[in-house]
């Protein structure tokens, strides 16, 4: 085996663990820490041997050839056949993709497609155009997406649903977006060229990566979401379990007890929301405080697009702030000292099942320009609640008797 240390040292040798006396080894310790960073950061399976650029080359190549040949009508036949070549098994599962083949050359000709491409060059119009194109089984981009979807499903479902493959899968989805964007640009380039409208403005593609993640990724993500989210769930299974236990413990607390336990300052408690019937005691009421924020946060699982999830997070914050404003009768700016305990309250009441998987999926797939920004902050705050709830379970006795810290 090979043991890599964070400082760059590598111990290579035979490791044994006989009769439980710890790890015994006989080997060579390499202390020359050259070219090791790469190896340490990327120890997930398959990443080095099989980088994302090398995967599904067959699928892209066919498309590329089609594009380079000028998207001739007669070439389309060979192009549409491209995914059949990958493997015999795949062919069977894909046959349904070709059921509309008969109508293909009638309804959606490549000339018309190129013509339409030129009409949509503003960002919003590109988005709606791409959405339509990617949904169509007749559009080249739609075909590409289908092929990638099938490949992805075949790889990462069933036996491929293994947490060690998460990074690989996540990278792959991002790469699909990049490739689809590139092919879109290629098609557009071709269309403009054929019309003789090629301007230098249309050629520049240096924003490509960023555009791909902001425009294409949300459109294609639903195709890969079930498998991808499954991998996230598997990857964060242990943390999610701890968190769930914490949530279960906290759910036993009545509202007032929980507010107290989480050190939410008394003047922020929305006691007005605790309406009582005759045989109720206020101290026993549950799930009544900050209800609007809680319900808002629960919508997190109903969305796929990381951006939408982040907007839900923002809305949750706004609901929280709104409630506090109502309680205090004035606008109040929530500093973290106040915000974090309130957020903990909402998170523990929202009881989102696989919160760890959600958080990490959002972080990995959100638009990278969000890094360090407000959405990043909100996500980080949510993550910190998630972490804290996990730890509560670990030391329940230590947490309970802590006096309020202000």
């Amino acid at each position: 085996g090979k043991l890599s240390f964070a400082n760059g040292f590598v111990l290579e040798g035979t490791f044994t663990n006989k009769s439980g006396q710890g790890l015994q080894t006989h080997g060579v310790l390499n202390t020359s820490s050259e070219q090791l960073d790469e190896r340490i950061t990327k120890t997930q399976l398959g990443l080095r041997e099989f980088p994302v650029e090398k995967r599904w080359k067959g699928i892209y190549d066919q498309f590329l050839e089609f594009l380079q040949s000028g998207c001739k009508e007669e070439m389309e036949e060979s192009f549409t056949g491209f995914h059949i070549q990958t493997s015999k098994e795949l062919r069977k599962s894909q046959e349904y993709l070709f059921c509309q083949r008969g109508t293909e050359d009638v309804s959606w000709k490549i000339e018309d497609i190129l013509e339409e491409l030129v009409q949509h060059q503003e960002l919003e119009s590109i988005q709606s155009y791409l959405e339509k194109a990617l949904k169509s089984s007749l559009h080249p981009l739609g075909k590409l997406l289908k092929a990638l979807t099938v490949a992805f499903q075949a790889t990462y479902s069933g036996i491929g649903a293994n947490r060690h493959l998460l990074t690989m899968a996540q990278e792959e989805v991002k790469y699909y977006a990049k490739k689809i964007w590139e092919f879109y640009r290629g098609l557009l380039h071709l269309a403009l060229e054929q019309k003789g409208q090629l301007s230098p403005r249309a050629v520049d593609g240096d924003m490509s990566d960023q555009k791909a993640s902001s425009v294409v990724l949300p459109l294609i993500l639903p195709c890969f979401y079930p498998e991808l989210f499954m991998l996230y769930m598997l990857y964060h299974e242990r943390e999610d379990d701890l968190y769930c236990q914490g949530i279960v413990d906290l759910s036993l607390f009545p509202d007032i007890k929980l507010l107290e336990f989480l050190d939410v300052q008394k003047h922020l408690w929305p006691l007005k929301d605790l309406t009582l019937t005759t045989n109720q005691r206020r101290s026993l009421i549950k799930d009544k405080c900050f209800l609007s924020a809680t319900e808002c946060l629960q919508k997190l699982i109903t969305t796929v697009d990381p951006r939408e999830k982040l907007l839900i997070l923002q809305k949750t914050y706004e609901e929280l702030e709104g409630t506090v404003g109502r309680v205090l009768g004035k606008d109040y700016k929530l500093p973290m000292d106040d915000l974090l305990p309130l957020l903990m309250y909402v998170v523990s009441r929202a009881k989102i099942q696989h919160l760890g998987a959600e958080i990490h999926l959002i972080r990995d797939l959100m638009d990278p320009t969000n890094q360090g920004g407000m959405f990043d902050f909100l996500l980080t705050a949510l993550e910190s609640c998630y972490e804290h709830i996990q730890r509560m379970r670990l030391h329940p006795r230590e947490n309970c008797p802590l006096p309020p810290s202000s």
Partner: protein
Amino acid sequence: MATGASAAAGGRSFSFKVVLLGEGCVGKTSLVLRYCENKFNDKHITTLQASFLTKKLNIGGKRVNLAIWDTAGQERFHALGPIYYRDSNGAILVYDITDEDSFQKVKNWVKELRKMLGNEICLCIVGNKIDLEKERHVSVQEAEMYAESVGAKHYHTSAKQNKGIEELFLDLCKRMIETAQVDERARGNGSSQSGMARRGVQIIDDEPQVQSTGGCCSSG
């Protein structure tokens, strides 16, 4: 850090993340609120009122986007620190000059930050509430000597009287620009390092990396 600087068309622009640390009642929030609201009362959409604030600056032709992250000061949340300060370019560590304890907390944060982030992060130690000079419990000399010994800069502020705050942030920005440029040059020299995206099996030994203190921030 990796997201520190980006070359934008027509001039340099930097994006910095600054994390705000300190005990509950030391006035860290009023400090940033003062700073961000003082001159222009523009209600920016991308601010969360008091816990996340942004500010745009122009320093010698360099555009700086500052994102200031507040943290909860309660001791029970201390363990959540790393989630907030990861990828920070700077940290503002606030204590109350009338409260010896809060200074001790700052020392703990410094130790932790240096251990976790090394010398890449610019540290500012801030003695707040200098309007309460009479009740001072942390001596100026002690604080400044400590700051120097850990390669941090020390500032005296009063959020109440709006003293020293502008200088603090301006100075911090300059230092972060400097660090980002040094970092960039080092990266340009071939030793490409991508410290991001660590996931998977990784064995980390407990020894903190050996760091020479005081190297990073000899500011201008």
